[in-house]
């Protein structure tokens, strides 16, 4: 059975086309369609319900040590108010999930995980806590909206004095008052665009959605669904769990080296990552040059030799091309390499290009 986010009725009211996703009923698009929603985020602003995301609160005197043990990134010198991306590996170096960590204080951190992985993540976290850390799955008491696009700061500044908003990418401010609602405002997102992710109590979600929609109505803000969320993240070459990474793919293969600190004394998966050495396959970008659209899990060839598989692919509206990401043999991963993708039995030409496809 699928769950509803607190905004379900609003999505129906807004004309959302509802589909099941990660155990939730969510809009894949609204009346304007994926392309218009995508372009609104690139050129103006879009509002997304991402309340399905999971949240785990880590507290206690050893919370930092627990995170450094569980996660691949290093949180040692992280200031309060910072946000940091990380991977959580299994002991084979495969990716259990990717996530972001908010530091509120030396003894309090919020970890935001993918909805589909919430339960397995929490089980893994709970099984690997150090004495003196408490982990609590608070997902059901947190709603999250994402306000994304170049107009996002101006829209939010109508509701909150600009100096009370986070100014830098990957920073966050707690207890921001938006129309009387207490929110955590984070300058982060999954679109490759400027914007915010805003966390609040579920009972505020509908009012917060309507308040933001009203504030943005003259700025081109429209509601956006899961379809645009996927095309936007793909165009910005942001990895998606279950596509660019899973428990059999290491963060190095997925190109997430920046989130893995091998200099740390230890973390779960470090020994396996050390032992495996440099990856033999890596994530690359593909621009489709033939007629067709590559999708996920399609074989990539040079001549008769299969060099890898696509992990995600679609038509990307702002770049205006069919694009894909793929895991390929490192020896065939140079930009400029001509390849073919087997699109449902038909060979379609493509070329390896640098990532990201789109940079604001």
């Amino acid at each position, binding site marked *: 059975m699928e769950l509803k986010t607190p905004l379900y009725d609003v999505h129906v009211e807004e004309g959302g086309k509802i589909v099941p996703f990660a155990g939730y009923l969510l809009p*894949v*698009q609204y009346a304007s*369609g*994926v*392309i218009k929603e*995508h372009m609104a985020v690139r050129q103006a602003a879009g509002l997304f319900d991402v309340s399905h995301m999971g949240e785990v609160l880590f507290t206690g005197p050893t919370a930092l040590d627990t995170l450094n043990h569980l996660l691949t990134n290093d949180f040692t010198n992280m200031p309060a108010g910072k946000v940091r991306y990380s991977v959580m590996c299994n002991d084979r170096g495969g990716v259990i999930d990717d996530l972001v960590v908010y530091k509120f204080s030396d003894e309090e951190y919020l970890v935001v995980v993918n909805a589909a992985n919430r339960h397995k993540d929490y089980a893994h976290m709970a099984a690997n806590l150090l004495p003196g850390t408490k982990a609590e799955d608070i997902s059901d008491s947190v709603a999250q909206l994402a306000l994304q696009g170049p107009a996002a700061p101006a829209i939010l500044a109508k509701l909150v004095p600009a100096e009370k908003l986070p100014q830098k990418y990957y920073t966050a401010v707690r207890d921001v008052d938006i129309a009387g609602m207490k929110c955590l405002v984070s300058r982060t997102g999954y679109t490759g665009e400027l914007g915010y992710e805003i966390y609040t109590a579920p009972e505020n979600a509908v009012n917060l959605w309507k308040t933001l929609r009203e504030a943005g109505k003259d700025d081109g803000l429209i509601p956006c669904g899961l*379809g645009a969320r*996927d*095309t936007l993240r793909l165009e910005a070459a942001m990895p998606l769990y279950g596509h660019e990474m899973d428990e059999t793919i290491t963060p190095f293969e997925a190109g997430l080296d920046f989130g893995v600190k091998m200099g740390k004394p230890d973390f779960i998966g470090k020994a396996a990552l050390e032992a495996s050495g440099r990856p033999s396959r890596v994530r690359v970008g593909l621009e489709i040059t033939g*007629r*067709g*659209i590559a*999708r996920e899990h399609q074989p990539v060839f040079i001549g008769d030799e299969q060099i890898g598989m696509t992990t995600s692919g*679609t*038509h990307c*509206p702002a770049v205006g091309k*069919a694009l894909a990401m793929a895991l390929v043999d490192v020896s065939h991963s140079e930009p400029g390499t001509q390849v073919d993708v087997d699109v*449902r039995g038909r060979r379609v030409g493509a070329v390896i290009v640098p990532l990201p496809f789109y940079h604001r």
Partner: protein
Amino acid sequence: MSNIPAELQYTASHEWIKNEDGLVVIGLTDFAQSSLGDIVFIDLPQEGDAVTMGDSFADVESVKAVSGVFSPVSGTVAAVNSALIDNPALLNENPYDAWLIKVSDVTNTGELLDAAAYEAVCKSEEA
């Protein structure tokens, strides 16, 4: 509710059909284009190709999905709407003008629905 012109015939797999100058004209219904969303790519057969009743003769792709288009008849492709190759969004804009192919020498025709029967199919899929 999607637009279902009374003068056309339909398939349960969301193609529309009409007879025109001895040819069978095949397109995608409004329900189909609306379900797919923004259509960004179409792969069509060539004039002279054979089509077989019940088999897919074209791929239509939106940003989020791929769908085959199934021929309700067996015959020979007499004409292809090549305007769709450069501008597949025409399928979203006016699905009943944006025909895909015209078929001649029809040897076999599958089960066709009238507008009322097709509307019932759409309703059952929406539910």
